[in-house]
């Protein structure tokens, strides 16, 4: 082999994701082949491409393996109680309307089980939040209990003979409640996921992005589906991109076909815009619209 050694690099070359991570908290706790870290790469890529002022971006997580994301991100980050990331983020969004973006980053259990009520109402009100839901079909952190997303037939610790409960079709739920942007990608689709996150960062109103990710330790192993990489191969093989798909048709089944894509992208006044418009109409000049210097951007 006649490879030519470069002279030792005088410049420091660092991983492009490094500046976005709290280095002192690494290495992270996630298992080998867990897909959560991959979604974080996509998110950092989206942050770079968005050009947003990172001092005005906040990230909020609930509890769970995915809930650790906020703690690893080198942003203003908040690790809240289980299921309460959305109400916390709502308070942050409204308390400081000058923030460029408030991102909620959490798991399927956190967002759609204990936090399900918050999810539907934030979507209904079109609260200006970007929600990233890492869907691994299980409660990872607590040992693999059945989640509202677990497909019928999948075995979980609390469903030892297979799940018989009908799971949520999360994009349909978010769409029906009024989200203005709804997309689903898997961690196989890294570029598309990063692009959806970029679009989400730029979109005003309630954005819901489902990121399907393997939990090899508790979901795959219990269902004899191999390692994380085997789930990615499944995503690759069974995914079909249907942008604009009717969200009613994108429900998931155990190891079945997956519809991915951008399903919803529409305009609707955000909660704050609606409130300001409403009171301006009622009170005219006597009403001072609420919002910071950047709120009208």
């Amino acid at each position: 082999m006649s490879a030519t050694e470069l002279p030792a690099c005088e410049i420091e070359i660092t991983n492009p994701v490094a500046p976005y991570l709290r280095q002192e908290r690494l290495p992270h706790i996630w298992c080998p082949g867990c897909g959560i870290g991959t979604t974080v790469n996509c998110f950092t890529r989206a942050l770079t491409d968005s050009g947003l002022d990172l001092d005005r971006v906040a990230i909020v997580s609930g509890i769970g393996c995915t809930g650790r994301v906020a703690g690893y991100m080198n942003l203003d980050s908040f690790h809240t109680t289980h299921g309460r990331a959305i109400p916390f983020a709502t308070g942050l969004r409204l308390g400081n309307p000058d923030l460029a973006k408030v991102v909620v980053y959490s798991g399927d259990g956190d967002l759609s089980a204990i936090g399900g009520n918050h999810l539907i109402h934030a979507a209904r009100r079109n609260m200006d939040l970007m929600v990233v839901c890492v869907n691994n079909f299980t409660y990872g952190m607590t040992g693999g209990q059945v989640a509202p997303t677990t497909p019928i037939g999948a075995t979980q610790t609390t469903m030892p003979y297979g799940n018989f409960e009908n799971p949520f079709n999360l994009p349909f739920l978010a769409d029906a409640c009024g989200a203005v942007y709804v997309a689903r990608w898997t961690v196989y689709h890294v570029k598309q996921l990063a692009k959806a996150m970029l679009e989400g960062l730029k979109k005003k109103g309630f954005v819901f992005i489902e990121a399907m990710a393997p939990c090899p330790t508790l979901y795959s192993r219990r269902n004899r589906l191999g390692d994380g990489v085997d789930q990615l191969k499944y995503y690759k093989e069974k995914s079909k991109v249907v942008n604009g798909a009717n969200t009613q048709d994108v429900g998931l089944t155990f190891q079945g076909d997956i519809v991915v894509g951008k399903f919803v992208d529409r305009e609707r006044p955000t909660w704050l815009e609606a409130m300001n418009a409403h009171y301006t109409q009622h009170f005219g000049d006597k009403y001072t619209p609420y919002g910071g210097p950047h709120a009208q951007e």
Partner: protein
Amino acid sequence: MSDAAPVKKGKGTIFLTLEVCKGCSYCIDFCPAHCLEFSREFNRKGYHYPVLASPEDCTGCDLCGLYCPDFAIFGMRFKDIEQRRQAAAVEPLVPARG
């Protein structure tokens, strides 16, 4: 951050912090140029880690970096490395022939 000095072949190369790799194989399976392979050796945690088996095929596209859930690997194009080197005003690289 990276442990290895790049070997100039192909359009780019990888940088690996091999002690944080957990051997998940995402990078190896989804490198579009199929230029990575598992090492024979183990890292300190006991995992096989990726090695650049066919450096001439690496484009430095950083898809491995986008996949790696442990932030262990990333790719970079020689063009960009060179640009940074020039920006840092260090000695320009003499294109060596082997």
